[in-house]
Each structure stands twice: as structure tokens, then as C-alpha cells.
């Protein structure tokens, strides 16, 4: 099936089977491999992207359901939280990082940053097995202006 997506501001036509996830369409068809696959079943957040401004797990939705949708991936993200991650050493292997950053940017936009506990709660969909959590929280806190 043919679907039209707007990915990082550019119009993309993709031809995919109906069963292809948005994650695989981005990675395998469009070739944007920045978005990661940690579980492929909605349990780790590594595949977080923004669809029409909302964060979602790209492995839990099919590409064909997104006709005309505005999709932002890590390749299209330009946000102060990226610099904050660098300054706070908020990652190690970097595999969860694209998802963490997409989630963090959304978490900040949603305003779920009133306290460390709130940040932790609203970032809890993103696993980091390297457990850079304390530094991730610090990075989000700083951008939220509470540092």
C-alpha cells in the first residue's frame, strides 16, 4: 500500500505492506535509522517518535495508519535537551538515547517537569539499561528551568 507521510518536514511516499510498523517503515524503507528498536512490542520506548506533536512508540503502530501525518524523528529534532544530555552525561551506550530525547522533548512540551518525581514518572516509558537515569532527570530538569 502507498502512504504519504511528512517526515521531518519532508513529504515521503512509501510503499509498504499493511503489516509494516511505522518503525520499520522509517528505518527500513525511508532509511532513517536513528530511531531504535529495543523490543518491537511497546515495552522500552527506544522507538519513540513524535506524530503530529505527540510522542508514541513507533513499533506499536502501522505505517498505513499515518496517511498525511506529521512525523518527527531524532534526525529532525533540534531541541535544547540535546545539549543538556551532553552536558549532564545523560547516556552511555546511546542506544536508548534517540527515544529518551524524543520523549524528553515531549515531556518538556507537555509541562510534566514540575518536580524530579514528575519527570521520573513521565519519562518512565523509556528504558535505559545503562541506567543513566539520574543524569537524564538532571538534563530534563535543567531545560525545564528548575536547575
Amino acid at each position, binding site marked *: 500500500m502507498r502512504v504519504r507521510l511528512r517526515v521531518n518536514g519532508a513529504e515521503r511516499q512509501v510503499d509498504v505492506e499493511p503489516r509494516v510498523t511505522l518503525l520499520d517503515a522509517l528505518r*527500513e524503507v525511508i*532509511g532513517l535509522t536513528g530511531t531504535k528498536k529495543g523490543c518491537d*512490542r511497546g515495552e522500552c520506548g527506544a522507538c519513540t517518535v513524535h506524530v503530529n506533536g505527540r510522542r508514541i512508540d513507533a513499533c506499536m503502530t502501522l505505517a498505513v495508519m499515518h496517511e498525511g501525518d506529521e512525523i518527527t524523528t531524532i534526525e529532525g529534532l533540534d531541541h535544547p535537551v540535546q545539549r543538556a544530555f551532553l552536558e549532564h552525561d545523560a547516556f552511555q551506550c546511546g*542506544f536508548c538515547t534517540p527515544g529518551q530525547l524524543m520523549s524528553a522533548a515531549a515531556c518538556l512540551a507537555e509541562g510534566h517537569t514540575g518536580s524530579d518525581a514528575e519527570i521520573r*514518572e513521565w519519562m518512565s516509558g523509556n*528504558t535505559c539499561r545503562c541506567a543513566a537515569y539520574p543524569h537524564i532527570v538532571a538534563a530534563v530538569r535543567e531545560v525545564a528551568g528548575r536547575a
Partner: protein
Amino acid sequence: MTTRMFGEPIQRREDPRLLAGRGRYLDDLGHGALAAAFVRSPHAHARVLDIDVTDALDVDGLVAIYTYEDLPERVADPLPLLIPHPALTHGRTGYPLANGIVRHVGEPVAMVVATDPYVAEDIVDLIQVNFEPLPAVVGIENAVRAERLVHDDVPGNVGAHLVQEVGDAPLAVDTAPHRLEFRLDIERSASTPLEGRGVYARPDASDGSIRVYSSTQTSTSVRFAIAAKLGLPATKVEVIAPDVGGGFGVKIVHPWPEEILVSWAARVLGREVKWAEDRREHFVSSAHERGQVQFVRVGFDDEGRVLGLDVRFLHDHGAYTPYGIIVPIITSTQLLGPYKVGAYRAEFTSLYTNTVIVTPYRGAGRPQGVFCMERTMDRIAEHLGRDRAEVRSANFIQPHEFPYDQGLVFQDGRPLIYDSGNYPEALEKVKEMIGWDEFPGRQEKAAAQGRRLGIGLACYVEGTGVGPYEGGHVQVDSAGRVHVSTGLTSQGQGHGTVFAQIVAEELGVPIDAVEVTTGDTRRFSYAVGTFASRAAVLSGNAIALACRRLREKALRIAGEALEADPGDLEIVDGIVRVVGNPRTAIPLRTVAVLANPLRYAFDEEAVRATQFARSSGDDGPPVPEDDEPGLEGRDYYSPVRSTFASGMHAAVVEVDPDTAEVRILRYAVVHDCGRMINPTIVEGQVHGGVAQGIAGALYERMAYDESGQLLNASFMDFLMPYATEIPRITTGHLETPSPLNPLGIKGAGEAGVIPVSAVIASAIEDAEGIRIARMPISPDELFWLRRRAETGEVERTGVVKSDRAP
């Protein structure tokens, strides 16, 4: 002025790329390669009667299906037993594809190659395997009972049995003024990096070579293994570890069946083939760790000093032993921690079960050993009515007693001799950080409000930086860039930063001029791998030594050019200059040009190195005897034995009186890894370790049912800590240099995880007054422990029944 680089908390340099989604992990490579997928056993133990591929044959996109019968010699051989040991009398390994029998759920039975991963998985579903299920052996107790066998030819399911002793521990226990005897249980857990395993092979038919990318902790060994299995000279095989999304031990195992099979199939088909593991596959077909049952007998005096410690433990190593018995050896030797005990005996039996193989996971046997020793310390303190910190202190090896020989043989076959440390100071520091002495008051106040607080403490010593060796190569090019390579691999430890810091410091060059490559056999072919907290110690020192060679050469050549004595020269910011006369100077990049006599000038710089431009008037050859062209240095570091890092953790927990939920209120770490190269990176490593430790203390276990099915093989059911579970961690550093290596460093990668279960158990016990003898402990288990304590079925603390061991 040269800015100091070694020891500075500089930002990691590999990060900007990762922040923009430009990481290159295994599955980001090989767009358009054929996809491999595996038919895996659904049974824990079964005979493979027949494999029927009929239904799969007309699927569009099928390229090949392979079963054991299709494999050529060598590929069809059992996988190598990587670390043999005399005590491993019955070591067994699996086959790349099942050879008539499967011994755990997840064992590969057939390989499918297709045009894309979706099709490959469809085909896997269409292949019918006819199994004859056999009774499974699951759990340590069933393994010991040995009513059924995992391997017909391994009696009692016993793979290995080993005793190490110093003095006569049973006698020392029997004759001690006080003695205790108890059992401890430790569950399985696993590394579960966020990126699973993966292999991508690119054959080159024109010259018969193959390049393999693998998400591995050891590219050099994967290379030799693939070369051996495919019958190729190593020069025809390149192995590259690209960005690796975490390892924590599981990716040191090699060659995985998939590494061999994907490489082999790529050559047979003459096509690129890729396999990226999925999450469930990782749970059931990679590796786990931890599972042990320990029986402890200890004898001690009135001060709490251990006079005799006699530990017998059973270790579950799963269905095969490709990685030997490293894990239980580490448990039995590192159990002693920072203590000197009168007499010690450790006996272990390593057992087969019909479960996934057990190989090192961060900590590698140490968390179990420390759990044993620290639970013992707490029991002693309780028995004597003494402070837990005081009892530990009474047993410490003192700072003046180093080097301290524990009298045992360590995992590297070398004597277990601690190089340095300062345990009393670490204890004072961690007590202060956590507020140990004030805690009873706090606890009482909380109790008055109906809150249950508890405090716990644990100490460990970690043998780090095991041999045999690593190497480093450093080269300055004519643009002044410094190219560094070492053979071991990186999985997020920030090697690109810490190695660059070492180089910047040793050579006097700006850190931005340094570029580091790890895990690429094209750049460095001799290496061991990244495990056992060894990268900084081994490669760090090798790189420093390589820099020193390069520096000596640079000063010699610069000395000739500047007509100065090399001893009067220094390198600052990439410029070689005369000390006290900075105008007499020559950039290192020019030295690099001069180091390579040229016939042909390819650019402006090169003109200076051509034969008629060179001023040297003597009649020696352009490259002097015993010298080599180029400004580079290569060296290796091979330690006599391990360095011993150490640390102490303490925590305050609150336990909910109704739900039995455990919350960590404060967590303090004192950590001594010798001289630190980069405190920020050390801190990140400590945080990561502590989080995995908390996971092991409270959440993670492998829930096998009696038929050998792993019931929680997903991130939904295998509980891992999220941002919500990890408390703020305060870290204090001690830096007791190691006398064993030029940089005075010890490893830091695994330390954080090691004492956590012991700390949390100690704190929960303190809060609840109920003995904690297993890890992990869930709210549910704690709830039932409370119930059973009410009925007297489990012991409460502080109830001294008798001095005599039961």
C-alpha cells in the same frame, strides 16, 4: 601551558553523533542485505525427530533453509569450550544448529535466509519440527537430585567441582567461640542490553574475503573463531564492532552460533546476510547469570573476627559451558572481600540444567560472593549484639598490610594478591555520607510515626584489569591529527574519551586532535576483549606506553631539526619546543613529516620531507638502522596479575507496613578505582552498576517453570528499573593508586553492581526485623515472610537461639 587532561571530568566526545541519531549500531548497517531468522526449540529438552520444510518452499522471498545436516565440517562441530579448567571435568557445548537433541528453550534448530526480515519470520513459522519431548531438569535442587540428566554422559549433572582452601576451615569453625550456619538463595538475572545481539556479513567473492560486523565485546576473538570455523586464514576475515548498544557481559561470549552461521551462509550464497536478534530471542537464546544456592558455616570470636569460614555452594550453569566456570570461580575467590579470615574453604559444584547458558553478567559472580560474605557479617553482628560496621572493621585488611595475599588462585590462574586499598577510610567515609551513627535516632523517630526505616551497608573488593594483555597504537599524521587504536571494543564506557585523555596528557596534544578507534580488526588485530573491568587498565596503559615510545621518537627527530638536546624539549599543545625558549619550536605535524623520508611530494608539507629538502648531511640511510618510518608508537600492556578496586555502599530504605513495598530513600557509594581518568565517566558507570544492582536486589529474576519455559521473557514481565526506581546516588571517591601499572589505575565498569543486593537485604532486615536470606526480594515475598515470621516459621533477627550450629 598544557591543560591537564588525565583526571578531568571532561564531556564525552562520542556523544554529539549519538545525540543526532547518527549512531551506527548493527541493525543500522546492511540496508538491503538478506535477512536471517532462526527456528528455535520450544522445548527445554527434546529429541529432534524430523524437520519438514515443505510448506515453506514456495514462499516468495525464500533464499535458503539450513539444518544441521547442511553444515560442512568445522561449522558442524560443537561450539568451542572457550575457557577450559582442570576442575571442569564434564564441559559440554552445543552445536550451531541442533544435532538431534535440544537442551533448552531457544536453542537454534534451523536457519532461514530470505529477502527481508518479515518474510524470514513468516517462513520460520511454516517450518514444522517434530520433537519428542524429554523430561527437563530445571532448578538447582532438581539438578542435584539428578533423577534426570541434561546430558546422558554427565553423571549427577555435575560439570565441575572445585575446592579451594586456606588453613583448616571446618576445624576453625568447630573450635571457634561462636558459630552460625545458614543457607542463602540467589536468583538468576541477565545482562539484557537494550540492543540485542546481531551479525552482518559481507563476503567479497573476488578475493574470497569476508567482513563481519558483530555487536560483540570482542571483535578480535570473533575474527579468529570465524576464520577457524570457515577454514579461512585470519587475513581474509575482518571483524568490526560498530556502535554497540550495551553489553554488560553477554556479548563477550563467542562465537555465538549466529556469528558462525550468518558468516558461513553469506559466503555460500555470495550475498550479504544480516541477523538482528529480537527481544524474546535474547531472553531465551543468549545467556543469563547469578543463580546459586549457598551453605555457609562460620566461626568467630567475641569481637566478631572470623576465625573460620566454610562455604559450599551450588551453581546453575545452564545447558552448556562454553565460558567454562569463570563465574563460580570468581564467586569463591572474591567472596572474601576486604577481610582477612582465619581459615577459609570454598567448595562449589557447577550443575547442568535445561535452561539458557550462564556466563558473566556485570559483576560476574561477585554479587553472589559479596551477598554471602556481607550477610555473614550481618549475622555475626546480630549474634554478638554489635554494630554492623564495627564487625566489618574488626575484620578489615589494614592499609599497611598490602600487598595482601589471600592464598587463593584467582580467575586468571594467578595468585589472589590485593595490590592496594584503604578499607578503614572508605568505611568512615560511607558511614558519614549515609549518616550511619545518627540513624538509630532517625529510625526511632520514624517508627513513632508508623514508618519503617532501615539502614544497610556492604563492602566489596573487585579484581579488575585481568590479563593476558591489550595493545595500543598511536600515530601522528602530517596534519597533526593523532590516530589511536586498540583492539578491545566499547559498549558505552566512553573509551573514545578516556583514551583520548590519556593520549592528550602523555603527548601534550589538544584532545580535539585525538581520534580513537576500538574493536576494528582492520586497525588492531591483537586483543582480548572488554570484560572484567579491564579496558581502562589494559588498553589505557598500553596506549600510554605507545605514546611514550612515540614521544621519545618525536623528541629525537625534533632535537635534530632544532639542533637541541631531546632532553631539553617538551611538547605543549601539539608543538615541540625547547623548555624555557618556546620560540625554538616545531609542530608535531612537521615532525611527523620529517619522520617519513619521501621521494614524492604530494602536498606542501610533504615537500619538506623529500630527499633533496632534508638537511641531514651524514651518510647514514634515510631511515636509520633500528628505526622505522613514520611517527607512530605501538606497545602492549600485560599485567602480572589483577588490580583490586574496592568500595562500600550504604542505603536507607523505607518499607511500607501494609504493602511491603521497598523504597530507597538514600544511597551512598564510596568507590576506589585507583587514579581516575575521568570522574564523570566513573560516576556514570557507578550509577549504571547500582541500578543493575537494585534490579537484582528487588526486581529481576528469570521465572522458569518446571518444564523449562521462561515465563517472563519480555520487558513487560522481566522487571527492570525505570527512571522511577533509581534513587539519587551520592558518590564519594577515594584514589588509592595501583602500584602494578604505569598509570596507577584500576577498573570501574562493574563495581557499582556488586554489593547492592547485600546492602538492600541488610537494610530491609534492619527495617523489618526479619531475616533476609535471598535475593531478589519482591513486596509479595516480603509480605509472606512477615506472615511466616508471625507464625514463627521464619526467624526474626535478634533472637539468638543457640551458639551451636544446627
